[in-house]
């Protein structure tokens, strides 16, 4: 079962498309990393999922309910953490917990106490006097004790020091998967951090979803190939096959190739040899960061091309 489903989700601001025909699904119980550079449409996508914004076209459903029909009952199962949210800043941490507790029947006081200790938050200090990291932890503290089935985190790690980041992640993992399949969506450009957490990845570029798939499949699919052969650079075809994302020619005898369909390595290598002839292929696995950067570069090149046209 999917916790989130989007079909051709589009949100326009005038002529600009912030989210452009996005279709993806997030299986229940997974941790989904939504990656993208600034302005890619990550926050807009999350806001569409929470019905904070209405889609221009397309549909999205969250926990089996269409987003435009989300009710109080659904929000008892959804947690949302974003830096720019407006909270009652005059409240102390304990007042904030006291305020939100009655709205959640599933509130777990013991967990709240445990997290307060783990986060090392000063309970009697108003939110406005907390540092950014402390404030994010305080907000997370008002979310985790009701065991949200779906947790949406919008840029939660930006500007946090490693200690706070660790606290934040530990706190989040404390509840995820504890008694029911919790789903987490993290929008971020801190790729190294989410790589360790996420089991699904989606990449948004210029409002378009480039990919959305399990982390394992992604890491199996992408390889950086170092191809060595006599004048191999001159043998490259004018029109690259779809699986060859990017080609670099550091020397006439060496070609660096990003291949995005390397799951079946034997078939992929055979395809490369069929085009380039007698060569040596050395495949290197790619990190999520590298995969993201390749797509980001391609996106930039495509955008420039569109501009030149």
């Amino acid at each position, binding site marked *: 079962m999917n916790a989130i489903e989007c079909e051709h989700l589009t949100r326009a601001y005038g002529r600009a498309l912030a989210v452009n025909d996005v279709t993806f699904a997030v299986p229940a119980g997974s941790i989904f990393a939504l990656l993208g550079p600034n302005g890619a449409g990550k926050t807009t996508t999350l*806001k569409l999922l*929470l019905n*904070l914004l209405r889609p221009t076209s397309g549909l999205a459903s969250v926990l089996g309910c269409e987003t435009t029909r989300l009710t*109080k009952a659904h*929000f008892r199962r959804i947690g*949302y953490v974003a830096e*720019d949210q407006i*909270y009652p800043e005059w409240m102390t941490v304990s007042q904030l917990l006291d305020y939100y507790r*009655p*709205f959640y029947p599933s509130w777990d006081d013991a967990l709240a106490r445990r997290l307060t200790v783990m986060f090392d938050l000063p309970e009697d200090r108003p939110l406005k006097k907390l540092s950014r990291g402390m404030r994010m932890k305080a907000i997370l503290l008002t979310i985790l004790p009701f065991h949200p089935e779906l947790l949406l985190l919008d840029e939660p790690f930006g500007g946090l020091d490693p200690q706070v980041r660790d606290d934040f992640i530990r706190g989040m993992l404390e509840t995820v998967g504890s008694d029911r399949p919790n789903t987490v969506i993290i929008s971020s450009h801190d790729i190294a951090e989410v790589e360790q957490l996420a089991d699904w990845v989606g990449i948004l570029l210029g409002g378009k979803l480039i990919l959305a798939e399990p982390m394992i499949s992604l890491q199996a699919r992408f390889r950086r190939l170092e191809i060595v052969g006599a004048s191999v650079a001159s043998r490259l075809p004018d029109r690259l096959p779809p699986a060859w994302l990017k080609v670099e020619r550091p020397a006439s005898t060496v070609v660096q190739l990003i291949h995005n369909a390397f799951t079946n390595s034997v078939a992929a290598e055979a395809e490369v040899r069929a085009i380039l002839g007698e060569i040596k292929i050395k495949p290197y696995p790619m990190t999520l960061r590298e995969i993201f950067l390749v797509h980001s570069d391609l996106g930039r090149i495509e955008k420039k091309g569109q501009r030149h046209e």
Partner: protein
Amino acid sequence: MNEAFHIFGKDIRRLWPIIVLSMTIHIIGYCIALSNIDPTSLGVFNSELQGLFQMAPLARWLIVFLLSVWVIHEDRAIGDRAAWLTRPISGGQILIAKVAFIVAAVSVPAGLASVSVALWLKAPLLLALAAGTQTLIVTFETALGFAVIAVVCSSTNQAGLILAGVFASIVLFTYCLFDIGRLKLPLSPFAVSGATYFLVACVLSTAVQAAALGHQYATLRTIRTIIMAAALISVANVGIRYWPINLWPYARRAALAPTLAEQLHAEPISSLANFVERHSTFSPAEVTISIPLRLGGASPDRVFWVNSVTSGLTMDDGRTVSTVTQPQGRQPQFDNEQGMLSVLGFRPSSAPITRDVDVATVRVSEFERIRGQKGRLTTQLQLIEGHYSLISRLPTRLGAEAKVDGHLCSIQAVLFSNGHCELHIQFVQLTSLIVDPNQLRAPFPSYVLINEARKEFSSSQLMGRSGNGRPGMTFATDRMAFASTYNLDTFALAGKVDAEWLSHAELCVFRIESVDSPTLNLSITSDPFVVPTKQLTQQVIIINPDGTKTTLER
């Protein structure tokens, strides 16, 4: 409901210092208004302090505005960043909490302050409660209006700017429509009591404001909310103006027989008519035609307001000019000091009341066309009846004070200058529309001095009035001049008001109450008159202290 109460509690915790400040301002506002400060002792600070007193009610409304805006912005309904939007909190719960806050923390303190002051003024409990309720309702309505502005704004500054903008737009809109466009709204064919009008206005306004707040909290669609509110306000205003059913009849203090239409008669005194050209900065110049009218047949204690005048001016060449006017001002057009004396038990003169009444207003261009022609005026007057009622009698000495029935009258200064006696009189009265709706029509009092030892009286002339109204209460400081004295039996001139005369005199304070009667319609046809062709110039000759003369022409 529990969750709404929880949100309400959060708002109270947040804003309690401002609520305390608001209550203090309510109380201080009343204290300042009720304080017996003798304006003559203020010296050079007189005007500044007077100005400060005038500003005091503004501080009250400012704090009501701030409280209303801040409570709404605690859980703002604009944009997509408010935390409650992603929590199991519905807009309905927030709306209930905010309205409860406006009632409990903004309106109730204002009402309680009003009740306390009313009881201090020795008002009957029912009247005090009614005045307090009225204050509460008016404050609630105003605060809810501020809340509607706040709900479509993201900051207090923005709300302040929009409030100013709304005010300016209303002024501009009404000016364009009614002054430049000369739009005349048709009169309501239904006569309803002031209390009914007040209640209908409150209910319809509350409904519109609640609908706008609810819409914004439910949908977060600001532009739609603004359009919806503007449309509903227009519909509500039409509903208020033409409301047909009398819901709350007047609870009058004295059952007075209304004057019958058959016994009342009005006639023009002669063929004289005054033509006065009025110029204003923005609207086109107009000529007002007024004729002296004699009104007879009414009891001597009665006064009459002219509610509307419908006139037709038929010229010899067949040209007809039709106008409908509604006189402004709150003092009755047909008033009579003898009416006050009759209330005190003195025999009034049987002479009918004679006053100049504006019967038609035409544009200058139209007036130019009928100049020099002979014409006849046919006028239908619609009158509303009132009567004098004695509030209190107090000796004419400095510091004399009377608190009775929700009124406070006190003499703050007694001066003799330029051959007349000047009294500075502070006057406070409850203005409860619910129990006693008459006050809306004539909120200020009338005065007469009586010297029973000499069997003489002196009538007053208003020199100046500074005052302010607040829901449930009217404050005024009147500067009244008393010059000549008259015999109570013959009404003949007897002498002048001096210190000796004043020492045996009493100040009688009256108010004017409506008589619960249908409006009275009178038809008048004037004798033919000629519209003048020449501009008359009025000469004013001022005799200076050194004996020289200055002549002014206008």
